């Protein structure tokens, strides 16, 4: 059995979409300026190009995993430090995502509770996800996607109040600092995570992967476009730059006769997305661990992974820390997303030419 295109699309959606949507608009408004939605769309196009390159690598790889390609070119002892670095990086990223979510949740609805205790429950569920095969994880993600996919539709509530004049006729003006490459990298964090698609290469046909990536990226770009436009047409630009979490502010205006505080309920559902992201990163780490310890039972590897995951979470104590770390990691992920497919592509080409030379 191989993963189908919609599994790939769901993996991509769950990797990119996340808690960053809550402050994404503010960050984009600060860095890009007015009509930042167009900027987000341009970044989306850039991501699409990057994904096209990943799809090309998948095609050339012919079902071989990223690690197989690397091991064919480099001796294993040389790769061990890279593997260890990758494992720690991925687990640390998963940990940042989990801790960021629990800190934000504590801030919103659970001020009296220790976030590490909240993270413990998160970790237990994650353990049961990562001990499964990729197909089990794809089923879990499909169900999680079904639960959260409708959330952007809540924004339709604001259509009556929406005003096009708030978008302003100016493009990319009034950013806090001058528009530089750094501003774009800052805004890029809405899309962080898609480089993990590389680990899915051996589990699907390259055609399905291509289709899934294209559809998934289109879907997520449209979701962001809808959310950006809804917020820009509802909240004035100056206010938007001042609100920490504009989407939460926006959702707090929704009231039903039987329930209030839709923003905190919506935020709770985002645990499905954070859980999926953390799980994919930890699953990636387990895949690398299996290269180092091929005979060890996956349950022990998962146990080691979540222990490191929980240990890393102690490093960050407040939201500002997780957000700073997340920002640094976004840059690293961007570098990884751009350079790792290039490196893999070069390796594949080199392997092919040296094979031909030998023949």
């Amino acid at each position: 059995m191989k993963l189908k295109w919609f599994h790939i699309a769901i993996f991509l959606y769950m990797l990119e979409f996340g808690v960053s949507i809550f402050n994404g608009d503010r960050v984009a408004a600060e860095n890009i300026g007015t009509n930042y939605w167009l900027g987000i769309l341009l970044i989306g196009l850039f991501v699409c190009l990057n994904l096209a390159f990943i799809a090309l690598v998948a095609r050339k790889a012919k079902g071989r995993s990223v690690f197989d390609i690397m091991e064919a070119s480099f001796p294993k002892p040389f790769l061990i430090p890279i593997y260890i670095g990758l494992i720690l990086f991925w687990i640390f990223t998963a940990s940042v995502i989990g801790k960021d979510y629990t800190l934000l949740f504590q801030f919103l609805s659970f001020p009296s509770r220790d976030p590490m205790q909240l993270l413990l429950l998160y970790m237990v569920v994650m353990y049961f996800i990562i001990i499964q095969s990729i197909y089990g994880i794809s089923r879990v993600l499909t169900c999680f996607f079904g639960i959260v996919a409708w959330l952007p539709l809540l924004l339709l509530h604001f259509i009556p109040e929406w005003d096009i004049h708030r978008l302003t006729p100016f493009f990319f003006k009034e950013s806090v600092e001058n528009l530089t490459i750094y501003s774009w990298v800052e805004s890029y964090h809405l899309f962080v995570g898609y480089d993990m698609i590389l680990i899915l290469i051996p589990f699907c046909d390259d055609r399905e992967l291509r289709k899934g990536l294209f559809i998934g990226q289109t879907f997520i770009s449209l979701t962001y476009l809808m959310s950006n436009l809804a917020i820009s047409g509802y909240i004035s630009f100056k206010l938007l730059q001042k609100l920490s979490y504009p989407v939460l502010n926006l959702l707090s205006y929704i009231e039903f006769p039987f329930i209030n505080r839709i923003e905190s309920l919506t935020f709770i559902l985002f645990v499905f997305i954070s859980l999926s992201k953390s799980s994919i990163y930890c699953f990636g780490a387990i895949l690398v661990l299996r290269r180092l310890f091929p005979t060890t039972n996956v349950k022990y590897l998962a146990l080691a992974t979540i222990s490191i995951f929980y240990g890393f979470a102690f490093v960050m104590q407040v939201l500002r820390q997780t957000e700073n770390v997340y920002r640094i990691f976004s840059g690293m992920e961007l570098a990884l997303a751009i350079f790792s497919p290039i490196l893999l592509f070069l390796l594949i080409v080199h392997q092919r030419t040296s094979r031909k030379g030998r023949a």
Partner: protein
Amino acid sequence: MHEELLSAFENCMDFTNRSYQEGQLQIVYLSSLVGNEEMHRDIILPFANTEGIDIMSILNKPPYIFSCNLAECIQGVLDGKAVLLYHDYTYLVDIRHAKGRSIEESKVESIILGPHESFVENVSQNISLIRNRIKSSQLKTVKLVVGSTTQTDVVLMFLDDIINQELLLEVKTRINAIETKAIYGATMVTQLLEENPDSVFPQFMLTERPDTICAHIVQGRIVCLVDGSPSAFSMPSNFFDFFITPEDYNQPWIIGVVLRVLRFVGFFITFVLTPFYVAITTFHYEVIPFNMLLNLTESRKNVPFPPLLEALIMEFTIEMLKEAGARMPTKIGQTIGIVGGIVIGQAAVQAGFTSNILIISVAISAIASFVIPNYIMSNAIRLFRFLLIFLAGGWGMYGLVLGIAGMIVHLASISNFGTAYLTPTAFKSIRKWIGTIIRGPTRQLRQSPLHSKEKQ
């Protein structure tokens, strides 16, 4: 052979030995298994007056079957056959009379429209109920025997032209590998076949309805009937099968869709309503609008327990009522209903044990749990709800949502003869995925088998 048979059935009150032709023809059988009519037709009439007739000329014609194997003869007697011993020759004749109740309406899975027949304990009658509905030579019946002592017949039924042969082979291997002394029903076989026996969720769709089973056969599944059990089950089954009833297909499709969606909503309500109440009243009062909050605090002000304990007491009481009601005869059952209604109704509120709103929540959850058509699935969900109540009491909405996530992860980890329990999430076509939740118009129902040939 005669002596060996007599010694094999020593101390059997119903074992009968009759002699004809001055002891030249011996007939042995178990009188409790044979029918008078069959006995009269195949034994008494042919052999009553045989003067001048060669007995061998009778025995060499059907329905008498020659046998020279003692084990086969003993098994034959146990199956309700008579053994005829004439000089050194042994013959078997089937004079079994199936005793059991006649075909009735199912009490567990009754429906309003559509066929009312249900399976009975006799496997041959059950096979005939299926054969009457699927008139195809491709419909195969394979008999296997399980239970070293009970020697229970287990019959597999499937359409040979569409079945996945690999799956069939695996099912046969797994059933043959069952090592047990006794089998008393289909539920026991399912428990021995389950790949995740420690899960609370039922992994095989058990039903008493021939129409449901026929639908499964036509879809390309293997159906298993167990002698002595009025339930049959199909392999492989998935989670969503437990929410489908034949009623959906016996009504206009729009009503069918609404009813199926209603069942999923019922599942959701029974699962989360009480834990939601616990989470809200323990940690998240802020989500309740002001006017409702006044009512809620008014109703809770006299309750001395924390919401978790309050909900546990009420849920435990209602579970006891349900269990008592299920075991009692109808007349006493009514009394229990009245007493329970008073206990968990106004009296509990007046005594300050619980709040009105919790009573409403518990009652709605209980009603919603009856919307789930399958009894075992309903029980599994009731049990899981208690876990969610604890999580909601400890971690609020966060615990509740992670509990739901945990359940999804658990369901995703269950597999069933190589197919996933949450199968529609692995389907390659979104059309089939939607088809699980929404039943399309009858004219558009695809006839292509869902489970055939290729493993999902």
